[in-house]
């Protein structure tokens, strides 16, 4: 039984049909990358899994239990956490307050010290207001919020977007460590190269349909797919 099982999901934005019968599965300890061009439905998939969007039809199972239609706070308490594309850092709160808020309803929350050990940059900025953080620091804080909850499944939505190459390198390292710790990760990215560097399996979405499933090697061996659905 897969850890996360998504079957024939149809998701809408208003009455705009975004996902058409999308099916995926994610195994324990895997890193699964969701690739595709902008507008393909990748973010919608993650938001549907997290319960932010209720799907029109289809089922989502976590540990075999159906979670579609449940509110996000329930799904978060079952061990899943979304790191959204826009990061959604609370600007009016300090770094430390952002972390403490995230830890509130987590039964096995990490102690702050452990988070600061993993992210020394955040330790330096612990009293800074959220809105004074740089893009890279915000992304780190967003990931740290998922980590402090000891989330078993982390959904990363475009974690590398808009960040300088050096920071992307840092974040890839962090993501690899998360994976090595045995967490399950679903990462959505437009930056194919970065995503493939630490993914175990890959799905490609185009216009709301799944058009490819396989390993990164399978994808590299099929340049037609790369060009048709990812490139230009």
């Amino acid at each position, binding site marked *: 039984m897969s850890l996360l099982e998504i079957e024939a999901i149809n998701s809408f934005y208003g009455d705009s049909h975004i996902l058409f019968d999308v099916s995926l599965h994610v195994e324990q300890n895997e890193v699964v990358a969701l690739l595709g061009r902008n507008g393909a439905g990748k973010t919608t998939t993650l938001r549907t899994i*997290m319960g*932010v969007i209720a799907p029109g039809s289809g089922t989502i199972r976590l540990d075999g239990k159906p979670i579609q239609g449940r*509110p*996000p*706070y329930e799904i*978060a*308490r079952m061990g899943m*956490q*979304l790191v*959204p594309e826009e990061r*959604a850092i*609370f*600007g*009016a*709160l300090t770094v430390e*307050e952002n972390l*403490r*808020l*995230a830890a*509130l*309803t*987590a039964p096995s929350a990490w102690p702050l010290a452990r988070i600061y050990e993993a992210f020394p940059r955040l330790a330096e900025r612990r009293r800074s207001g959220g809105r004074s953080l740089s893009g890279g620091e915000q992304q780190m804080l967003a990931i740290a*919020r998922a980590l402090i*909850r000891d989330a078993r499944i982390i959904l990363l939505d475009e974690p590398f977007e808009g960040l300088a190459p050096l920071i992307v390198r840092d974040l890839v390292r962090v993501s690899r460590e998360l994976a090595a710790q045995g967490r399950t990760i679903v990462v959505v990215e437009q930056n194919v190269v970065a995503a493939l560097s630490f993914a175990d399996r890959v799905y490609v979405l185009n216009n709301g349909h799944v058009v490819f499933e396989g390993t990164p090697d399978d994808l590299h061996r099929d340049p037609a797919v790369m060009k048709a659905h990812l490139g230009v």
Partner: protein
Amino acid sequence: MPSLPLLLSQAFNGLALGSMLALVSSGLTIILGTLGVLNFAHGALFMLGAYAAYVTLQGSDSFLLALLVGSVFMLLVGVLMERILVRLFYSRPPEDQILVTFGAGIVLVEAVRAIFGGNSQRVPVPSWGEGITQLGFLIYPTYRLELIGIITVTLGVLWVVLYRTSIGLVVRAGIEDAGMVGILGINVRRAFLLVFAIGVVAAGFAGMLYAPIVSVTPDMGGSFLVESFVVIVIGGLGSFPGAVLGGLIAGEIISITSAFDSAYSEVMLYAVMALLLVVRPQGLFGTEGRV
């Protein structure tokens, strides 16, 4: 030009009025900031608190007991109001939210009028507040000084709750992005209930404290409603520090202007609001773009 003692005494009156406005407006602003609802019933809730104190004092002599019972009563009112009515309107347009809270305000005022009649009731000044106090060359009613003290403490407690507790953390984050708070595993709707209840208790508590120095009638909340709107416009919508500072400023504007010419005291407040809207519409602490 009014005399110095008059100005000073009016300045203190301004503090009393201002701190009361600060408390009422704090409740209004956190409800607005977190829930997005402009509570047009806020003046009626202020009035309800005053009557709660009046009723308790019919059966007991202790003003402190009246404050306690009144606060519990207001908490119940807040919970009921949110659960039965306000909750239904979170996803409706702001005009609908304004109309329903406005209607609730009318119902509260008329219900009180039906039960107690329209005559002004008297709530006596508590025994520990009687008399006057000497402050240098200024003689000032004791209760008003104590009023300022009690409200300062209350606002301090409110500040501690907002900035030093977990629930305060949830409220401040919820004001910014309620959706993300939900994703982080927190049931925001339950937090909404608490925020609304706190706001209602704040308004009612202010009413209880003010009852001894003003005439208690069903319509007493009307002018405070409008004034608290002006305060949160001055302070910035959704900002607790803005409501406190704005309340004090408003209280002083009204009181000091009345030392010069009492006819213009209220008008001056609205003139300041109009000026602010032109020059800095987001107020003292508000965020631009939320206007």
